[in-house]
């Protein structure tokens, strides 16, 4: 059986076949999503395309072309047709960027950061405070703010704050890192966890003595960066109206724009990460990860290098935070819980520590699981519950199925299972980094 598949795969993986298969998946996927915009199957077929592109042998140029086609043209158009997919791909992009950032810290430098969400929160609150009316409400009671307060800054400032979010988060990373980076790995994990909580509690409580964060009420509305000039929009509208069946609204353009900003940030993260990996810093990180004592002996400036990793990881989270605040036009402390940190960690672990394609895959898979697959499964169960169907052999009526058995509610269980199973059976991830594979797969590090 296995041989049959492996032969089949070998045959399919030669010559022009890979391109044909990839195109087939993309076209079939795109058409079926277009035809039935709410079908999950159709969307999954489409999302299989990048996997095929990654794994099968074909010319690099073709790969890049098909990939860009999918990411830049097909997904946004389908997204405008069904705005929910814009949300899905936006979340995928946001979490992919977060996971890539965390991957620098954990995967490349080997520092376990359980409070990664703190840097995301810093970025989000940076733009939230300055991009909303909050600055003029510093002395008002949360929740009782006058509605006619002015915005502090014009929406164009968002672009600056995207960079400020990066800088501020990196600074926080350094401030936190300076004292704690001397610690061993597991202490570091707990301290960063604590730091994540501290930031959340601060966001929750800094509504007095000065109302900086508006406390549990959260900050809303937050401004969004302006859309491209009307001329371009008009042009896009003319092109897109016949394709998607209705003139795209501003809200849809906003979502597409945020998706593209996220893509650009991901591009930068990937560029930085790959460049770093082969640089002096990257090699120093590897050395630290493999054996700290040896690294020190070889003259690697330990704290400096760890700080660099911490700051680099943090800065990407800061950028995504600012983007998230602008996209949602709302931030509240609830968004930045420990569960998010673990969610991002799960993405990194699932895909493969240190592996860029792996991490992107992990992020997409977990996001899909979270907001599509589990949700749909829940809806499916709830439909069954309302129906009169029974399970034939054991004679169990679906009606009697407990209301509480709702897969969408058990994300923690899913995250937990993924983490345990991956660690036991495949610690290097589904798409391992080449170096990691060697390291985690075969040689186990000797304990002293």
């Amino acid at each position, binding site marked *: 059986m296995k041989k049959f598949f492996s032969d089949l795969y070998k045959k399919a993986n030669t010559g022009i076949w890979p391109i044909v298969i990839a195109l087939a998946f993309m076209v079939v996927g795109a058409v079926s999503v277009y035809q039935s915009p709410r079908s999950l199957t159709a969307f999954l077929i489409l999302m299989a395309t990048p996997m095929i592109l990654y794994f099968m042998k074909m010319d690099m140029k073709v790969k890049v072309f098909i990939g860009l086609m999918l990411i830049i043209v097909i997904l946004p158009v389908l997204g405008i047709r069904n705005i929910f997919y814009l949300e899905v791909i936006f979340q995928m992009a946001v979490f992919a960027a977060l996971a890539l950032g965390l991957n620098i810290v954990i995967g490349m430098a080997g520092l376990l950061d359980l409070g990664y969400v703190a840097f995301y929160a810093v970025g989000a609150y940076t733009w939230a405070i300055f991009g909303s009316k909050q600055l003029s409400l510093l002395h008002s009671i949360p929740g009782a703010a006058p509605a006619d307060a002015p915005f502090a800054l014009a929406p164009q400032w968002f672009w600056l704050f995207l960079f400020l979010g990066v800088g501020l988060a990196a600074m926080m990373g350094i401030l936190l890192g300076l004292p704690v980076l001397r610690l061993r790995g597991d202490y570091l994990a707990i301290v960063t966890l604590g730091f994540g909580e501290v930031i959340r509690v601060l966001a929750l409580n800094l509504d007095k003595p000065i109302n900086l964060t508006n406390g549990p009420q959260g900050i809303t509305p937050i401004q969004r960066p302006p859309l491209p000039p009307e001329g371009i929009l008009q042009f896009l509208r003319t092109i897109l109206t016949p394709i998607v069946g209705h003139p795209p609204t501003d809200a849809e353009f906003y979502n597409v724009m945020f998706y593209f900003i996220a893509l650009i940030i991901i591009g930068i993260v990937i560029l930085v990460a790959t460049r770093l990996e082969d640089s002096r810093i990257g090699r120093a990180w590897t050395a630290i990860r493999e054996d700290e004592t040896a690294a020190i002996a070889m003259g690697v400036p330990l704290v400096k290098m760890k700080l660099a990793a911490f700051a680099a990881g943090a800065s990407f989270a800061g950028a995504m935070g600012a983007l998230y605040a602008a996209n949602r036009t709302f931030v509240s402390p609830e968004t930045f819980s420990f569960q998010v940190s673990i969610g991002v960690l799960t993405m990194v672990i699932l895909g493969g520590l240190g592996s860029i394609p792996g991490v992107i895959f992990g992020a997409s898979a977990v996001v899909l699981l979270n907001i599509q697959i589990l949700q749909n499964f829940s809806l499916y169960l709830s439909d069954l519950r309302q129906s009169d169907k029974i399970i034939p052999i054991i004679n169990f009526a679906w009606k009697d199925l*407990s209301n509480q058995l709702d897969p969408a509610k058990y994300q923690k269980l899913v995250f937990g299972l993924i983490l345990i199973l991956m660690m036991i059976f495949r610690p290097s991830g589904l798409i391992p980094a080449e170096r990691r594979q060697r390291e985690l797969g075969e040689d186990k590090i000797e304990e002293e």
Partner: protein
Amino acid sequence: MKQIAENPVYKFFLFPIGQIIVFSLGASLVLSLITVLLAYIFKFNVTDFDLVERTLLILPQVVINGLTIGFVYSTIALGYTMVYGVLEFINFSHSEIFMVGGIVGIQLMAYFEHIGVLSTMNEYLVIGLAIILAMAISGGLAVTVERVAYKPLRGAPRLVPLISAIGMSFFLQDFVRLILSLTTGEFNVILPKFGTFDEFWVIAIPAMANPLRIQIKSAIMVGVTIFMLVLLNFLVNGTKVGKAIRAVAQDRSSASLMGINVNQIISITFLIGGALGGAAGVLFALKATKLDPFSGFFPGLKAFTAAVLGGIGNLTGALLGGLVLGLLEAFSASYLGIFTNGAFGAEYKDIFAFAILIAVLIFRPSGLLGETVGQKA
């Protein structure tokens, strides 16, 4: 002198109890003095009433509150510290094992209520049975968790079992919730009402306006934890198993060469740690009167902080760390609001624990008592 030190009654009974008393009184005294000093400093800030007077008014009560919760933290912290001593690994899911203990205890009492014998049974017997059952189930769960999620990873790089433990923690939270909601349909587990331990002993203190009120519950909590601590001390320092545990903690491979079954010892360590966690869970449940599947996370995190504070891997350190952390929390929550005139309040008490953790790790990475006991680097 040497003879006294070797006397088993002294060594396994008087000395640890003396230690506990010294630690509680010492920590309380130091923190009380600091607080009174702060009260004088912040006096100008408060105009409605005399700050020093108000501080002294509630001081004894705050100390009692702090010690009560401090002993619970100590008991949980012992679970972390024992596993760390043996495996050098943070058993992240210990907080869930603690929570399971509490829920099991409450469910047993609810079962007694259900079959109608709760009101006729001796209340201390009920609590005793609940604690024993919780210890058995939590201990068993801890051993199972170790076998399933940690044992296959022994020898892997440090982060690997830690990540698995985090996964286990998340998994257990939702798994317990799943079981609870499928069996009872409820999210909260509520302690049934029975017995007289909600009542108070009221002790008038001379020269104080407010009498000291000690809830019988709190006395039970403190009493049971002290009993456990003494028992554990005996187990670790006075028995063969204890010797083996210490040997494994010192040097696993040498211990193995000396004929100690390391895997078995590790299982026993998890069993003891889990059982302590289960007992602490029931005691915590008495106080909280209501638990849910997420109740364990924060106390667990704080207990871990306590373990680090005292010097992780060091049993006495866990005791001291728990007491200090409990007291610090009680003091910060009670006084922060009063001292700052409402600008800050009890809401900051949770991050107080983490701030302390970071501070300790910066200035004294080996913890308060970290240096006195030999442990692996």
